[in-house]
């Protein structure tokens, strides 16, 4: 921690400029100069970043660096927090998601989110998955809904484990199964982007391995933004990695390059374990 404070006092404004290529061809989400404030406090300081199609992008950094805050900006989950203010542009497929006229309901259907702690509703497994399609009116008949539920559970790799007990409460599953149920629930709405906020940090290693395998498969259909504290996880899962430090986006690059040959001193210090 002491090293961290020293680091902090020694980086100047120039050191906070993002190193590496922040843009990609034909991005799904385009963020330009995003600032986030909690009241007077600035939590995110001018982040510019593209999120590509069918890629897993990992966000790493020490606690309190703003990576979760940034993630939650992408589907406006920060709206619910009192005193939170977002400036700058975030465009989803060219559409400004902070446009006053935009409704958050369809936005969140397009950009789903999975949380750190599995949070299935106190309903049956079936109802958990059917919740999203129901509120968005995605299906008109029961059989269509059954199909969506089955497909989502299959995509989340949970179908075989729960197909005989769809009517039992989702809270009765194990932690890893609950997290995959939450992923199935998100998939059921048919999103384009899935945000994951440390999805494995409450899981044991075996459940983690299953969820990681699932994330890798999901890349085929979705853009995935994952916040993680585990650098190994970031290295295993992602194609690109973004390193955040105290509200600044310090370095972005291909995951290989970030972990083998970081260009910014802070990134290097972090991934070599000098602080964080």
């Amino acid at each position, binding site marked *: 921690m002491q090293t961290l404070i020293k680091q902090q006092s020694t980086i100047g404004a120039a050191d906070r400029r993002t190193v590496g290529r922040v843009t990609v061809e034909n991005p799904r989400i385009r963020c330009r100069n995003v600032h986030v404030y909690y009241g007077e406090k600035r939590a995110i300081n001018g982040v510019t970043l593209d999120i590509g199609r069918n890629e897993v992008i990992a966000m790493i950094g020490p606690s309190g660096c703003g990576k979760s805050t940034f993630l939650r900006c992408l589907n406006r989950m920060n709206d619910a927090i009192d005193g939170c203010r977002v400036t700058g542009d975030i465009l989803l497929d060219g559409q400004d998601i902070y446009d006053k006229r935009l409704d958050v309901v369809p936005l969140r259907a397009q950009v789903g*989110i999975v949380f750190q702690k599995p*949070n*299935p509703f106190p309903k049956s497994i079936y109802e958990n998955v059917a919740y999203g399609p129901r509120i968005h009116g995605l299906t008109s008949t029961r059989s269509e809904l059954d199909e969506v539920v089955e497909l989502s559970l299959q995509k989340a790799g949970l179908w075989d484990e729960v197909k005989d007990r769809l009517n039992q409460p989702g809270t009765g599953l194990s932690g890893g199964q609950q997290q995959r149920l939450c992923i199935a629930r998100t998939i059921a709405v048919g999103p384009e982007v899935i945000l994951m906020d440390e999805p494995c940090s409450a899981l044991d290693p075996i459940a983690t391995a299953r969820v990681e395998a699932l994330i890798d498969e999901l890349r085929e259909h979705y853009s995935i933004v994952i916040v993680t504290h585990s650098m190994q996880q970031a290295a295993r899962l992602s194609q690109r990695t973004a390193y955040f430090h105290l509200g600044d986006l310090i370095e972005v690059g291909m995951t290989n390059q970030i972990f083998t040959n970081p260009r910014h001193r802070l990134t290097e210090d972090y991934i070599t374990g000098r602080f964080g």
Partner: protein
Amino acid sequence: MAGLPLFKHPLKDINRLIMHPSTLFFTLAILCAFSFWIGKRRALTIADGQIRNLHSLPGYYGYYATLWCAIPALTLLALWTGFESNIITALVIRGLPAELQHLPADHLNLMVNDIRNLVSGNIVSGEIDPAMRAAADHYQNLRQISQAALAVVALTLSILGTLLACRRIHKAQRARNGVERAIMLFLIGSSSIAIFTTIGIVLSVLFEAIRFFQAVPVGDFLFGLKWSPQMAIREDQVGSSGAFGAIPLFAGTLLISFIAMLVAAPVGLMAAIYLSEYASKKMRSITKPLLEILAGIPTVVYGFFAALVVAPFIRDSGSLLGLDVSSESALAAGLVMGVMIIPFVSSLSDDVINAVPQAMRDGSYGLGATRSETICQVIIPAALPGIVGGLLLAVSRAIGETMIVVMAAGLSANLTANPLQAVTTVTVQMVTLLVGDQEFDSPKTLAAFALGLMLFATTLILNMVALYVVRKYREQYE
């Protein structure tokens, strides 16, 4: 004639002061403080001034000595006070002349009472004969001896206790563990007081109720359709045979509680939803206390309000519509009672809604649900057991409520489901049966206890169900 002053001597007055129980208590308290100091000193001396050498902190040795000083003496004090009066009375009776001793038991009791009155200087019934005067002096004498003995024995015990404790103090002695066990026992004692009080209440009601059921068959009471508790005092009195069918009372209670819940449940629940989900922090900090003020209004005041404002209003608006509304209607009482229990429902529901983890809301919002969808489909179902528990508690509160219905519901035991008529409730009847001078051998009076027992059983069951439901809900998130 007032009682003769028994103590004329100033010396005797001083004597009495010294003998007074509060003096004893005060002395004991001083001794306890002293024993604390001695115990602590003793521990420090043993440890050569090094606290590290002791098993516990020095203060614990002090408390240890205090406990030894206080507990035996206080136990003795309690036992002594408990048995003193009986023993002295027995001795006094034995000292009475033979012809008085052989009086019938109730006569003897009366005389003992007279003797006690004489001693304490109260008015005595009848003439004072010399034998009684002698007995009174004897009584007084015995009491003084007893109190003096008590003081001596108690103080000796406490001093001996302190000395014993000091002797037992050594370096490795686990004074802390001993003191903590004593504290735990004390806490157990405190918590069992509530339980024993409940048992005591149940038993006292139960025994009177059993006496009632000896006069009136249980079946007649539980299933009778007519309530008219007036009993004939004279043989030739007309029309007062006494009918103790409790059905009209329970029907009235249920009708009024039902109306009350019809008001309180939706209003309270919606208020809770607004407060916990929609209101801003500032709004909530103002509104919630305001709502809870409702719970602080004495029910008597609600009673005025029901009887003087709501009931006439309902009667007048009823007559405008051509309805025949009695001036004391179940509707008026029920409406006001409903307003009274709104804060119960809203406060309890607000608590359980707030207890639904934020993760549930996040999960729902994250899927694109709107606020109302989240509330209806996630939060309310998750909080439902707690809300039901809160509602059941509110119902039991409504059933037991007395003042509003006394003032606004009336006394006539009509068996009706029409809320515009006057009905009466269990609690109202209990009040009317017990107000004023009553004879405790008449079923009329005893009926109040039978009603009380029924009411107690009903609310107890409701509360138990409510607590069970609430507890089951809690298990879900822990």
